[in-house]
């Protein structure tokens, strides 16, 4: 139905292309990969936002928006993502598929051209980025970093990871540190940008109705002039199998509800391990679904919270449990979360729990190709990790996992850090 192909277009430039006619839109992304490092993170994170401000031909936001309006309201969004220990920066675009334009004109060619232009030919002043744009985007990035605290649920989930991986690249915030953003200049950013263009691996993704040959041709044209000077490699993601002595981190804020997050190491199991499907099943069983032990016990049985769930950081080998609880109930919630994990380790679950977890996980993998956005993110992660398995293959492996293997995965989980966000009056 849809075919996924991987092609090298230029040195260090790879295209993952999904050919399908089932969507009304096409999705295109261009992503530069850099090792996640404290010193570069802020500059790397700022660059796509700066590039998105204007190009030689479209020097300001209004001109760019007008060009996108003409492409039937296409979008080109700056993206800064963390995949394993790589910082992935670039653009993701979504455009009306050529089949649905009012006059039958093609959108893809121009859309790719516009994205390539943003990546390669920015609006400049005196041979570097515009000082005005730099100043404004620095302020925006600082706001963005500060705003992470506004969403307490995701904030608490990030904080536990930062705390447990404080001395690993994975602990680096994908947006960088505020102080490092302050220190950036149009010139320093320009130099960093030149290095990325010359040496960073570039991952391209396309999903839509165009044939592979045409996509390759269009993208090669859009990327004409990309300097390629060698490098392109990423260090492997460091995986620490066993936790240190469990640590506790507490933070106080003026909030109505407490947030408890617990970070576990997976015993070295990552998306690349043969045990990974078993870990996925174990996670779903423990806290990944509405039939999970955490949902049924911490929420439904004890009414301690509205949400209690677990999720994997599959390339790094972590599992994070998140929960929102009344301050006074945090001890009870933590004890129950630990007890439920213990139950998984002892194999104390019914067949319907295992099968429910399996059906849920298989289904979420099989529906992945129904969403262009989810697919793009999945394949970027796989490309960074050097993996080629598609969601259907992972689903097939999941069908074969036994309850004993899920128990073994549960036994390999070990608690590293507990984080609690409490209120000022607690």
């Amino acid at each position, binding site marked *: 139905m849809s075919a996924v192909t991987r092609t090298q277009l230029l040195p260090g430039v790879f295209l993952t292309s999904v050919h399908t006619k089932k969507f009304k839109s096409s999705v295109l992304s261009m992503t530069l990969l850099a090792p996640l490092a404290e010193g570069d993170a802020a500059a790397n994170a700022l660059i796509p936002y700066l590039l998105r401000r204007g190009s030689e031909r479209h020097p300001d936001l209004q001109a760019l928006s007008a060009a*996108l309006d003409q492409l*039937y309201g296409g979008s080109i969004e700056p993206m800064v993502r963390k995949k394993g220990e790589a910082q992935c920066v670039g653009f993701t675009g979504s455009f009306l598929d050529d089949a649905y334009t009012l006059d039958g004109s093609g959108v893809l060619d121009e859309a790719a051209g516009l994205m390539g232009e943003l990546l390669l030919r920015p609006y400049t002043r005196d041979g570097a980025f515009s000082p005005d744009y730099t100043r*404004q985007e620095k302020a*925006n990035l600082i706001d963005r970093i500060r705003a992470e605290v506004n969403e307490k649920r995701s904030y608490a989930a990030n904080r536990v990871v930062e705390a447990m991986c404080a001395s690993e690249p994975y602990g680096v915030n994908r947006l960088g540190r505020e102080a490092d953003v302050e220190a950036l200049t149009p010139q320093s950013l320009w130099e960093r940008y030149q290095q990325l263009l010359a040496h960073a691996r570039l991952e391209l993704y396309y999903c839509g109705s165009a044939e592979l040959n045409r996509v390759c041709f269009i993208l090669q044209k859009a990327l004409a002039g990309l300097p390629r000077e060698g490098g392109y490699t990423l260090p492997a993601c460091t995986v620490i199998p066993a936790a240190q002595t469990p640590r506790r981190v507490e933070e106080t804020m003026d909030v109505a509800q407490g947030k408890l997050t617990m970070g576990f190491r997976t015993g070295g199991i990552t998306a690349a391990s043969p045990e990974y499907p078993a870990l996925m099943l174990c996670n779903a069983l423990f806290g990944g679904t509405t039939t999970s032990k955490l949902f049924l016990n911490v929420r439904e049985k004890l009414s301690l919270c509205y949400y209690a769930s677990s999720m994997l950081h599959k390339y790094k080998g972590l599992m994070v449990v998140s929960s929102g609880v009344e301050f006074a109930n945090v001890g009870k919630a933590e004890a129950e979360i630990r007890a439920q994990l213990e139950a998984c380790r002892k194999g104390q679950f019914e067949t319907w729990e295992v099968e429910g977890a399996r059906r849920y996980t298989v*289904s979420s993998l099989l529906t992945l190709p129904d969403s262009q956005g989810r697919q793009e993110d999945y394949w970027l992660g796989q490309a960074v990790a050097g993996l080629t398995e598609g969601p259907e293959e992972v689903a097939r492996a999941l069908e074969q996992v036994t309850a004993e293997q899920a128990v073994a995965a549960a036994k390999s989980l070990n608690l590293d850090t507990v984080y609690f966000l409490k209120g000022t009056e607690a």
Partner: protein
Amino acid sequence: MEEKQYTRVGEKLFHTVLDNGLHVYVDPKPGFQKSYAFFATNYGGMDMRFRLDGRWLDTPAGVAHFLEHKTFDTEDGNALQDLAANGASPNAFTSTALTGYYFESTEKFEENLKILLSFVSIPYYTQESVDKEQGIIGQEIRMGDDEPDTQVFYGMLEGLYAHSPIQVNIAGTVESIAQITADTLNLCHRAFYDPGNMVLCVAGDVDPVRVAAIAEEVLPKAGHPPVERDYGEAEGTQAAKPRWEKEMAVSTPIFQLGFKDTPPKKGEDWLRWELIGNLACEALLGTSTPLYAKLYNEGLVNEGFAYGCEAYPGAAFLCAGGESRDPEAVRAAVLAEAERIRNQGVDDALFQRLKKAAYGNLVRGLNSFENICVNQAMSHFAGFAYLSFPEVFDRITKADVEECLCRAVTEKRTTLAVIRPKGGAQ
């Protein structure tokens, strides 16, 4: 079943109405793995006062939402778990005027559909489970108390409306939900979960005739006449309060500007109002307008700035909001731009571009099954055919958009709601 082709957007829709009054819509989607079913009642947070069996009843804030949580309970257990055990991803939400239950699945679609129709239509509320749910929903409300976006939106509604129930928090308060009993839930279920007050929308690679046959088989054979509702006396045209403020633990001020408009009539008028309202926002402060460029360059808004329009029985408004260091300056600039448009009109080239972009975005939205089904349900309750938007859209003129802006965006119809950072945050 009646079959309707919407060739311009490449969709077709099957429709029928059952003897019990239920409308069934099916959008066949060959090539997709997943199927999606959405079963909704025309009943939401604002429907607190109504007449049943000749008696006017006042129910506490938060009943519709509470009912949504408890409706998953069945005599044999919990439908959420039954669906999940079949690999379906079920969930539900309650909005101001609608409660919807849905699932997405890749296998056993018919079995899952039967479960969905059955648990929603058969009430099973016990006092014990109602008491237990108070704790869970209490935590959901507390979580909302810490979400600035939620708080500022309700703040804006409180500013715009003197008494319309749309300003009441859908989840209610810890105090209001304490008044809810199993009897309250049974009463509201009887009033609003009647097939004649509901709609079933399905998208996926499914047989439309089977969908209708299953609905016929599972649901009650007859319904009752619609329940009369009372939303209080009609609202005036002006905003009740020009400003609303609150302090929270946030990094930068978060604001929402609201512009009170005259509610549209049911039918195609409603669709026209929505399409015009969205274009009016785009023309006034959308990303390709001079105003947006100015606000962005001055650091008064960032990329999180978002806008739109919403209509409910007796209430309609345009709104725009995000983070800003100076929300008052944004308010002043928006009102000044509206004044300029009142005198000079919307730029013709801008309008043509915006229309093209808005069209593309509407078509791209049809990628999402959820979007199709939820919009189909809402449009059914509002009395129009959602997929007919291209034809209605064609007939919208620049004058329509200007008229909307002149009418709604005036000082007297405006409310500015702001969440300010509390001392001690960050």
